[in-house]
């Protein structure tokens, strides 16, 4: 099983100080607590490109990164750090071999939601990944 969201979350864990898988960094499901979390989702993607003989595929999945934080300033800053970290990926192995990661929409603020802990701001970022099969 190769989930792009899992590979991206693992990469963020290694690259961004303060993000730790299972503590405040999750894949596929956002917990109610703590309020300040980052969750990465597989969100579909474009059909793969393939060679004429079908022997080689370039996959183009998409992932969404959702940032939730009680502090607008901290959350926004964290979203920017994630954006800047992922868009620097060119020809790197993050579990799978990635050719590049591209923003398909910039940071969107979705407003405030109520968690079990407190009111928190939510942002989303969407990325297209270009990766080998």
């Amino acid at each position, binding site marked *: 099983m190769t989930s792009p969201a899992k590979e991206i979350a693992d990469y963020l864990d290694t690259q961004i100080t303060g993000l730790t898988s299972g503590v405040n960094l999750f894949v596929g499901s956002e917990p109610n607590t703590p309020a300040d979390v980052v969750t990465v989702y597989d969100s579909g993607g474009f059909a793969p490109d393939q060679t004429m003989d079908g022997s080689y595929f370039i996959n183009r999945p998409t992932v969404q990164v959702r940032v939730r934080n009680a502090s607008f300033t901290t959350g926004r800053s964290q979203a920017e750090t994630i954006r800047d970290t992922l868009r620097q990926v060119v020809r790197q192995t993050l579990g799978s071999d990635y050719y590049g990661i591209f923003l398909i929409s910039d940071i969107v603020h979705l407003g405030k939601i109520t968690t079990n802990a407190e009111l928190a701001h939510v942002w*989303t970022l969407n990325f297209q990944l270009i990766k080998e099969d």
Partner: protein
Amino acid sequence: MAVTGMMLIGDEKLAARLQVLDKEMTQKTAEALRNAGGEIIRVAIPKTPIATGELRARSFNEGPLQEGDKHVQVVGFEKHAGNWDKDNAYAVSVHENLEAHHNVGEAKFLEHGVQDAESYLLKYLAKEMKL
């Protein structure tokens, strides 16, 4: 004998013909882009969640807007949402919430519409513009 210049016989006719072709191509490009935008909305609508049906009715397909050589067709939902009261606009929230359960439709309804239509729309646009 050295050649110092060249005159193309009929160059005025050629220029006029090129202007006609340019106009025809612009019209054809505009029509193709409008059709492509309409196709994206057609594919996206069945994917759009229904609570009251209001969201589906808020789709739009506008353009093409022309800036120099660039033609831009804009498709989306809630075109004037920026001027609405905050609570009246919800297309972005519904589109981006991947954990919401919808009995009909799905999150990313517009994005998935673009993804589904991408392959044949690129071929269609190339054919219409004779690329």
